[in-house]
């Protein structure tokens, strides 16, 4: 039941991301729901679940982006691993810490893309990437992230009360 619900959440997030999220685009920038989900799992779930969600979500994102040669798998796995391994070392509760760590994760995600594109994929990235797209993307994720965290907290609290799943490490 718990895992089915988690899969359902991922499916819903990806459906929103690939369809009407463009409606909320600001200057061509949209938030990355997959990234927010991975950070959420890294912070709130067990280590295995955090890393697993990073790998699975990244792979799904790669397959839906025209095969970016695992760029998203790499960045999301690392982000999932980072938060799963170090969540006890820092405090990711409240709007400002969540926004701060989401901005950091977004910057990392963008940099992984940039370096992959400039090295392995030999693609062209606009010069405005560093002063326009990447900051806007990071801030957008940081602003929208705490709201999504709140919604996911409510869903997972309800799921926990129904299933009592041990993979949730923090009571919300």
């Amino acid at each position, binding site marked *: 039941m718990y895992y089915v619900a988690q899969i359902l959440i991922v499916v819903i997030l990806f459906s929103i991301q*690939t369809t009407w999220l463009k409606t909320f685009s600001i200057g061509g920038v949209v938030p990355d729901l997959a990234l927010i989900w991975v950070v959420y799992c890294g912070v709130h779930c067990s280590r295995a679940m955090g890393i697993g969600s990073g790998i699975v979500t990244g792979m*799904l994102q790669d397959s839906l*982006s*025209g095969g970016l040669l695992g*760029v998203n798998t790499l960045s999301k796995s690392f982000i999932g691993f980072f938060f799963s391994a170090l969540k006890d070392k820092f405090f990711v509760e409240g709007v400002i810490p969540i926004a701060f760590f989401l901005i950091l994760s977004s910057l990392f995600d963008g940099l992984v*893309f940039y370096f992959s594109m400039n090295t392995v994929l030999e693609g*062209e990235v606009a010069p405005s*990437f560093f002063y326009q797209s990447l900051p806007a*993307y990071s801030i957008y994720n940081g602003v929208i992230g705490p709201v999504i965290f709140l919604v996911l907290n409510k869903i997972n609290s309800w799921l926990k009360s129904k299933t009592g799943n041990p993979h949730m490490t923090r009571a919300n």
Partner: protein
Amino acid sequence: MSLNAKQEKEISFLDSFAGLILSPFQNLFTQTVQGISDGINHYFDLVDVSKENERLHLEVERLVNEKNDLIERISRQKRLAGLMAYQDDRKKKSLVASVIGRDATQWSKVVFIDKGTRDGVETHFAVVTNSGVIGQIIHAGPTTSKVLLTIDSRSAVDSIFQESRVSGVVVGTGEEHCIVKFVPNTADIKVGDRVLSSGLGGVFPKGLIVGTVSQVVKKKQGLFQEILLTPSSDLSRLEEVLVFLS
């Protein structure tokens, strides 16, 4: 005669006096009764009006939805007519497809269409609109396909300038515009020049509009110009596209 006149005078006085005393009460009673009667009538009328209002609201809602639906159909018909006219002009076997989804990340520029291998779509088929090139199929599933847009960082289209016939390569930047690479500094390129597909590369037929030059920077040092290109179609608002089936 005199008696009658006296009686009439007395009656008239009594009448006037009685009328003077009674009329305020008469008015009061009449108005009260009328008011109550009107109130009751209006109450029942209001119940009817309220029901009617509710019914009319539903009717208006239905008509607004119907109108929106019709506007949407007309607009779709117009877009399809444009695509069909373009299809007839090109005299090339093609297929109209609807865009059903977009990229899952900020960094890639991909759309999903509702036609796949069952409809004859294959990898590396050109995808266009009546405004020009939008991209190529990079993966064809049985019922859906992925289209790599020309603005994606991994996209490259061999092109020529319509006026000067100078060749270059249109490369996506991951933003809303492309750049044209490998255009020599000596070439005469102006803002507003059209860029067409050259037909080389085997994906896009020759002569399709790729975009319009929006900025030209000629460096004193270096071999090539820096040319910014605005794609021919608004790639953020794609709804129906044409897939060339060869």
